[in-house]
C-alpha cells in the first residue's frame, strides 16, 4: 500500500478505486491488505470506510440472471439463423450448446496458489462449465468435477495438468509447445483446439481434435508428475487432425486413434448432401473434404456405383452406413480411416 493512503480520511478511502475493489472482491482472500500494524487511527478509518462501501454494495440488484439468460438465448438464436443461412458455424454451435450457462457461476470454485511456486489449481465443483484464460491467451473450458493446474505465468514452457475433462483453445506459439499432462498421456500442440477427457476412475483417456494438429504421447506414470518426460522418436504417439481422436486404454497401456463419434463439418461452405445419380467416388470425395477424413476403397471395382439420397442432418458415420448399406457394401473403421469393401454394384 502506498504511503499517501495513510493521510486519507474515511470519505477519501470510501471513494478510492483500489480501496473499493479490495472491499468488493478481494477482502475475503486478503483481509489484512489495507490494515497497518500498530496504526490504530488509520485502521479505524479503514474499518469505517469498509463498512460504508459494503453497505452500499449490498444494495445492488441481484436478481437478473433470468433476464441475462433470456437475452442471450435471443441473441444466440439470431446469430444461429444467420450462420445457418450461410451454412457456417452450425457445427461449432453443437459444441457451444453445452457451454450455454458458461461463466454465470463463479461460486464453488476453489482457487488457490501453491505455496512454493506460481501454480494455480482450479477445481470446477459446479454443474456448469468454467472458462479459464491463461497468461498466453489460451483458453480452457473446464467441465464439472474436473481439475486443472497451470502456472500463473508461462515462462519458457507451457505445461498444464488435467484431471477430468476440458476443452482447450491453445494460442499459437511455435517456440513454446503447449503440453497437457493427463493421466498417462501427454498431449503436445502448437496452437489449436481440442477436448481432453482424463478421469482418474475411468479406464480411458480421450483427446478429440477440433482444429489444427495435435500429438498425443503415452507415457508411464513415474516421470509425468515432474514434467521430466523426454519426448522423442521412440515415444509411443499418434498424430491427430480434426475429427480424429486418440483413446488411451490405461489397463492395456494401449494408444489408438479413431474418428470422433459425431464428427463436425470442417468446411464452412453449405452442403445439403443431396445426391442424384452421383458416382460413389464423387460422393466420397465430398464427404472426405467436408469432414477431413480418409475413406479407402477399391475405385475400380466400385466405379459403376451411383447413389441418389439426401443425408443432410445425419452424423458422418451414419451417412457412410446409409450409403454403404444401400449399395450392399461393407464398412469398417480403423485408425481413423474408413474402409469400404464390396464386389461392385
Amino acid at each position, binding site marked *: 500500500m502506498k504511503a499517501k493512503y495513510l493521510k486519507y480520511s474515511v470519505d477519501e478511502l470510501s471513494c478510492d478505486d483500489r480501496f473499493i475493489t479490495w472491499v468488493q472482491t478481494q477482502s475475503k482472500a486478503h483481509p489484512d491488505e489495507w490494515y497497518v500494524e500498530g496504526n490504530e487511527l488509520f485502521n479505524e478509518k479503514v474499518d469505517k470506510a469498509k463498512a460504508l462501501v459494503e453497505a452500499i454494495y449490498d444494495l445492488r440488484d441481484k436478481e437478473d440472471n433470468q433476464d441475462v439468460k433470456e437475452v442471450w438465448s435471443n441473441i444466440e438464436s439470431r446469430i444461429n439463423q444467420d450462420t445457418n443461412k450461410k451454412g457456417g458455424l452450425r457445427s461449432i454451435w453443437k459444441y457451444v450448446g453445452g457451454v450455454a450457462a458458461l461463466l*454465470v457461476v463463479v461460486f464453488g470454485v476453489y482457487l488457490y496458489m501453491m505455496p512454493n511456486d506460481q501454480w494455480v489449481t482450479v477445481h470446477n465443483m459446479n454443474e456448469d462449465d468454467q472458462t479459464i*484464460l491463461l497468461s498466453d491467451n489460451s483458453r480452457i473450458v473446464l467441465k464439472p468435477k474436473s481439475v486443472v493446474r497451470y502456472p500463473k505465468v508461462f515462462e519458457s514452457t507451457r505445461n498444464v495438468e488435467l484431471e477430468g475433462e476440458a476443452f482447450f483453445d491453445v494460442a499459437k506459439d511455435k517456440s513454446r509447445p503447449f503440453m497437457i499432462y493427463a493421466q498417462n498421456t501427454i498431449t503436445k500442440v502448437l496452437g489449436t483446439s481440442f477436448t481432453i477427457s482424463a478421469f482418474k476412475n475411468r479406464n480411458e483417456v480421450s483427446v478429440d481434435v477440433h482444429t489444427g494438429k495435435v500429438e498425443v504421447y503415452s507415457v508411464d506414470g513415474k516421470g509425468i508428475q515432474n514434467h521430466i518426460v523426454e519426448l522423442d522418436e521412440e515415444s509411443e504417439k499418434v498424430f491427430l487432425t480434426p475429427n480424429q481422436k486418440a483413446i488411451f486404454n490405461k489397463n492395456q497401456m494401449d494408444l489408438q486413434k479413431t474418428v470422433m463419434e459425431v464428427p463436425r463439418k470442417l468446411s464452412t461452405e453449405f452442403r445439403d448432401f443431396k445426391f442424384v445419380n452421383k458416382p460413389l467416388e464423387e460422393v466420397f470425395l465430398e464427404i472426405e473434404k467436408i469432414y477431413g477424413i480418409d475413406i479407402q476403397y477399391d475405385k475400380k471395382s466400385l466405379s459403376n456405383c451411383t447413389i441418389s439420397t439426401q443425408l443432410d442432418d445425419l452424423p458422418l458415420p451414419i451417412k457412410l452406413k446409409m450409403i454403404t448399406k444401400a449399395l450392399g457394401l461393407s464398412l469398417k473403421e480403423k485408425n481413423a480411416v474408413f474402409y469400404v469393401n464390396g464386389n461392385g454394384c
Partner: protein
Amino acid sequence: MSQDSLHALWTQMTSDDVQAFEQLYQLVAHDLLIYGKSLTHDHELVKEELQNLFLTIWNKRKSNQVPDQVRSYLFRAFRNNVIRSSQQAQKVLYKVEDRIEEGVNEEENLHAHSIKDIIESLPNRQKEVIKLRYFQGLDHQEIAQVLDMNYQSVSNLIARAIKKLREKMTGK
C-alpha cells in the same frame, strides 16, 4: 473481470469465435441490465437494447475496430441507446439535461432514512455515478468515459455523495 480479458475475448470474437463472444456477453450482461433498468422503468426496452447492442457487435465484428476500453465502450453505447429509445417512448427516468439542475432536490434529502433512501434521493447525476462505481464496478476513469465527463467531475460527484451517506450513517 479485467479489461485485458474483455479485450482478449473481443479480439477472439473477430475471428468468428462464438464462444468468446458468449463469454464477453456473460461477463458484462448482468451489470449492463441492472444499469439499464436504473435508467428507465421499461425493463423490456432495456432487454431489447441489450440484445440489439450485442447483435450489432457480432454483425459488425469484421468491420469495427476492437475498442481500447471495452467495458466503458459497452456501457457508453448501451447507455446512449437506452436513453435514446426511452426518450422516443417518453419513458426515461430523467433527461440528460437534468445535470444542469443538479442540486435542486438536495434539500429534500433531510428526511431520508436508510442508505437506500439516500441514494435514491440523490440528484440524478450523482445517483448514476454512485451506481456505476459501487454497483457496476466501473472505476473513475471508466465512468468519465461512459458519461463523457472529465475525471475530476466524476471524483467530485462521488465524493459529495459519499459525504452525504457518511453523515447519515454516523447520525450527524
